[in-house]
């Protein structure tokens, strides 16, 4: 009895296309809220940069442009492998999808490793979030972004395991695509953070 009704509760028949387009719409809406979340920080950035242009020009020299550039390349490349992964599963190639997801995950971990080196370099120079407004912004923006990388990695790892288990096919691959959207957002936000923090001339 219990068993039957539990099944029933998950089993309301949704048209597969409706389910697919619902998931995509839902994810896009959620990504919109993520942008607004960062939007608050971008607004703070704009206000304080207008207020203290010299501080930003001077203190951003402390940031390691090379490492930032490497991380940018890593994330852009990971977005490529993610997009390829989505295309692969739509063509039913499960093994290829798994490999591409794995490459994406490795890129994400690489990004985290570089960020770790950067943060420890800052700490060793006694630069902390309360050092100045600029470094508050630096740590908060990259920190919140790092949190999103971490969540993205969890999503990707789940997708990787489910792909290995053969849950996704050419017919049903919504989670891979929707998870991919999230990963692209993580990439996109970094593409704005990098010039705003590292490349102030």
């Amino acid at each position, binding site marked *: 009895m219990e068993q039957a009704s539990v099944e*029933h509760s*998950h089993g309301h028949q949704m048209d597969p296309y409706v389910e697919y387009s619902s998931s995509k719409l839902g994810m896009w809406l959620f990504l919109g*809220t*993520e942008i607004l*979340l960062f939007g*608050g920080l971008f607004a703070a950035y704009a206000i304080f940069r207008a207020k203290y242009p010299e501080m930003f020009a001077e203190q951003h020299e402390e940031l390691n442009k090379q490492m930032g550039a490497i991380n940018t390349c890593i994330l852009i490349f990971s977005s490529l492998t993610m997009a390829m992964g989505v295309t692969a599963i739509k063509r039913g190639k499960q093994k290829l999808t798994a490999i591409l997801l794995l490459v994406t995950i490795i890129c994400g971990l690489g990004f985290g490793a570089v960020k770790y080196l950067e943060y420890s370099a800052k700490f060793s120079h006694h630069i902390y979030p*309360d050092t100045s407004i600029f470094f*508050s912004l630096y740590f908060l923006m990259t920190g919140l972004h790092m949190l999103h990388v971490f969540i993205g990695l969890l999503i990707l790892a789940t997708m990787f395991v489910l792909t290995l288990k053969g849950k996704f096919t050419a017919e049903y691959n919504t989670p891979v695509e929707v998870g991919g959207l999230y990963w692209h957002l993580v990439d996109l936000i970094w593409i704005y953070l990098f010039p705003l923090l590292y490349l102030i001339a």
Partner: protein
Amino acid sequence: MANHTIAHNVYVPFLEKKGILSWLLTTDHKRIGIMYLVSISFFFVVAGILALLMRLELLTPASDIVSPHTYNVLFTLHGSLMVFFFIVPGLAASFGNFLIPLMIGAPDVAFPKLNLGSYWIYLLGTLIMLIALSKPADTGWTFYTPYSTTTDTDVVLLTFGVFVLGFSSILTGMNFIVTIHKMRAPGMTWHRLPLFIWASYATSILQLLATPVVGITLLLLITERTFGVGFFDPAKGGDPILFQNFFWFYSHPAVYIMIIPAMGVISEIIPVFARKPIFGYKAIAYSSLGIAFISFLVWAHHMFTSGISSLAATIFSFLTFLVAIPTAIKVFNWVATLYKGSIQLHSSMLYSLGFIFLFTIGGLTGLFLGALAADIHLHDTYFVVAHMHYVMIGGTVMGFLGALHFWYPKWFGKMFNETVAKIAWFLIFIGFNVTFFPQFFLGVEGMPRRYATYPPQFESLMSLSTYGSWILAIGMFVMAANLLVGLFRGEKAPQNPYNSLSLEWQVPSPPPHENFEEIPHVTDWTYGYGKKKESEA
């Protein structure tokens, strides 16, 4: 056991299953709606008791019942609980959950599991807030800096709880938008949607657009306290006004998150009990979206005395007056719907009429506060307290209670005692006005809010307000007792006690799991009263 085949023909109400797990693990939108309803009602009662304590303290000029610090804690908790734990999730999450799928002819929301997840996140947020009570904050519900960064009470946990609640709000809003876009029954076109759906849609958009901003604001406040970040601290080059800008960018739209669902409720109840098609359907529908849009452009009207430039203040004052237009459109259309209707004064209709009357007072007094010169005098006085309670109790709570009385038979399958409900309405209406109307005078005479003590010349108005709060409390108690007794002793509710044309009344009371035996085909809007009767069959 294995009666899958006949299961389709046997009517099993969604309330049938028992046991705590059947609730905590349910994905049925009607059950999730009940869980929200119970949770928000709990916080409504708790925060209401805190308000009664405050009023009791204000019975006499001296601070004799609680210490001034305790009083600060009381109004902080009263405000935070009412705003973030009761009224923001309030109607939108409880009745939104229950009604949206039923009204658009869907078996459930678009993401039932996520819907349950949102409720758990809400619970998590409340849990965090409860831990914060060990050293409750005394900042007021707005958490203004610099005080909120320097007080030694637990601001971090309370704001973190609110931050977590924000997630729940975002996910619910997203779920509802997708549901309304993708799950409408065949023939349920946008212009046939019940107005409550339009209101929920506008509310959900606000939840998505505004909540992330308060999220990041509170996060910044938390980092300010934990990592010594200085965005709001002038000593470190920051600006406390920035906090106010950020905070109100969310919290002003949030006012409309609180009120728009109630407006949707009123638009549903009035045509049913006036037996007339709603007047100005499209005007009401689009004015919800209009309010949602304008609400993002008025936040600085909370800051006229905070030191913003007079140009900015003038612009924000003008934009503030614009909100009156879509709001007035609604009120005029409701009144036009009532005109020459054959009105039945069901208890839910009384709450709706109470809404129109009280909300209009609340709205009009808002114009005084939006006017720059008047606001200098009235800012942070009891006038503001009275204004906001006329909008929030006179508006949202009236709408909430109206919704509760209107959909009670459908939701719980029982009838309550209508006479007692009317008496309770009368007590609430009188009690509310006696409590808050004197506060307009107190404000005009210059009594500032948030003080535990006051000069003796205000004693008569202050004590009158306190007596009113007792009537209000008795009214609330009678109302709640009546509804609770109805759950156990009430008669069984018929399918459609009010002869409503809306889809939710075309299924049994309480509705079965997944709502409709067959997804309905909609051929007309839901407000065709006084013309045809065939859809009752």
